[in-house]
């Protein structure tokens, strides 16, 4: 039996972002995927299995760390870090990768395809596949392979085949292109584990669903540890799975929500990956969303010191929430992110991923705006970025 139509909403917000702009070859696989996803969510045995893997393999719940010294540095009353850096493989990506790998196994798929930018999703997918005995192929841009070399080695150690993508800038966008092509060729046997809340329906919804565990845990932990909610919640946003994962569970609360994009090294098109100001609505990789593009509708080049934020499109749900005023989108430059990483290292003994450092960089701004307590999503650890930190910070 094949699913014949989508039953979950495919669009987000008043602008109707999202959708499923996929080649026909992928339509049935996407329909089947949505069905499998819905069935799995309704199946207590899947939920138990996922919960068990998240707890016993991934290391959930991740801690909520009170960062008192860093808070004091900016005059914040309280700063709480949601520690996705402590998950197995070192970033929030594993929450989604493991869930989708379990889903793939349920669907009888024996192969996994994935793309990766920073390599964290690739490593997460590789780890999940090794654990479940699935064959895994990861597509990665050559630029990203160079700047996140340790992650390439980690994937290979997990038995994953890493395919270099030479096209274009050799970053995440090209990796997604290539993964989509590979999936079209193998969609009968393979599941495509997309790594962020982007792509055609049902990926954005599915990935967000698998990531809201971050915010759900954090919300409960805030209440447990401080008996109140923070004044502001902030997370970095590449595709947006980390941002949505943390922020969505706080949508009903009376507090400020922030997502931080990569400001790169300038404000001209091509010098950053800040889609809110710099982008227009467009369609890329199967969904309609805020997109950095030129006047011809061609995807623009992007720049960011952090591979994981270096992507021209904001995930559609996050873009919709931003356009509808429910999440405020800010940006941090390469230089600001580097400085912020040092703050956290020296004040709290935590080495953040370059991606997460973009959220940290906005702390002085939040303090200036008068927020007293802040919850910040530390999406990953910075081990993968060591060589960048070394060369840029002269360590």
């Amino acid at each position: 039996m094949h699913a014949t139509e989508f039953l979950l909403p495919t669009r987000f917000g008043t602008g109707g972002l999202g959708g499923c702009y996929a080649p026909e070859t992928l339509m049935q696989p996407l329909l089947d995927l949505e069905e499998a996803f819905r069935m799995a969510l309704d199946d207590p045995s899947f939920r138990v299995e996922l919960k068990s893997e998240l707890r016993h393999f991934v290391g959930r719940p991740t801690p909520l760390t009170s960062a008192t010294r860093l808070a004091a540095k900016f005059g914040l009353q309280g700063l709480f870090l949601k520690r996705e850096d402590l998950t197995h493989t070192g970033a929030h990506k594993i929450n989604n990768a493991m869930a989708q790998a379990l889903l793939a196994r349920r669907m009888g798929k024996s192969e996994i395809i994935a793309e990766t930018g920073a390599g964290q999703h690739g490593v997460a997918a590789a780890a999940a596949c090794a654990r479940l005995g699935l064959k895994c192929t990861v597509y990665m841009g050559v630029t990203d392979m160079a700047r996140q070399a340790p992650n390439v080695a980690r994937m290979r150690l997990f038995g994953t085949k890493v395919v270099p993508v030479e096209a274009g800038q050799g970053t995440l966008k090209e990796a997604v292109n290539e993964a989509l092509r590979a999936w079209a060729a193998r969609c009968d046997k393979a599941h495509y584990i997309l790594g962020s809340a982007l792509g055609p329906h049902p990926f954005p919804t599915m990935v967000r669903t698998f990531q809201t565990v971050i915010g759900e845990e954090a919300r409960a932990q805030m209440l447990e540890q401080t008996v109140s909610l923070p004044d502001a919640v902030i997370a970095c946003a590449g595709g947006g799975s980390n941002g949505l994962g943390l922020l969505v569970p706080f949508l009903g609360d009376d507090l400020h929500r922030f997502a931080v994009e990569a400001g790169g090294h300038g404000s001209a098109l091509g010098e950053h990956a800040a889609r809110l100001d710099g982008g227009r609505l467009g369609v890329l990789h199967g969904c309609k969303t805020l997109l950095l593009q030129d006047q011809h509708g061609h995807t623009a080049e992007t720049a960011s010191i952090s591979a994981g934020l270096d992507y021209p499109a904001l995930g559609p749900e996050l873009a919709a929430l931003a356009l509808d005023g429910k999440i405020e989108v800010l940006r941090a430059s390469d230089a600001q992110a580097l400085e912020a990483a040092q703050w956290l290292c020296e004040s709290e003994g935590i080495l953040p991923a370059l991606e997460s450092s973009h959220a940290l960089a906005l702390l002085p701004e939040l303090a200036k705006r008068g927020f007293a307590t802040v919850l910040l999503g530390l999406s990953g650890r910075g081990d993968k970025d060591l060589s960048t930190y070394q060369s840029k910070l002269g360590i």
Partner: protein
Amino acid sequence: MNKLLPFIMAGDPSLAALPQLLAEAKALGIEALEIGLPHSDPIADGPVLQAAAHRAIQRGATPLRVLEMLAGLTESPDLILFTYLNPLLQIGADRLLDLLWPTPVKALLVVDLPDSEEAEFEAKLRTAGFPMIPLLSPTTDIERAKGLLERRPDPGPGHPFAQRFAYVVARLGVTGTGDTTDLAPVRERVAALKAISDRPLAVGFGLSDSAAMAEVRAMGATPVIGSALVQALANGGGLVDILRSRMNG
């Protein structure tokens, strides 16, 4: 029956050569031709068409310049504008229609636009005489195919092939040369489709030599030659030479 549906990438080898190529195709007896509007992120294309699109963009073959170059051409087969959604969306339906009127474009094949996703945009174009060609792939079962063919209906025998046909994707994957060797599955699908519709069918993806073309014709469908043609043109081959051998048999 239409013997061959060639695909060329606008702007490759060059934009200036386009009128000449189209004229040659027409002179050869080519009734309809797919013309690729190069896009930065051709997710359904293999290496050959990716590279061609990339070269074309480098050489300035922007959507507007391509459509302007086509404006007023009469010595041309009917054209199917083969592309991705975003460039068209950025132009917008109204302006796009203004641009399309003066060209030989008769229909559009937008690879990443399922019929439901931009209903208003698509309806505007169809109403104005620019229908979207339905794609049917190996993952499209017969029930789904029925729906697709209904929602992007055959405008009927009074209309040219370019507006009527459905595109049958020969195999899983992306466009590319010469790797669809076993045509048995597509033969079955063509037969099944013929049982539910008498719409003309084109079969493409991975066909390159005359033998494959002949096999498709034997199914009662029009073979598409895409990557193989684009590659040969890029290598300096002449359109007439390349196509002539593949039109017979």
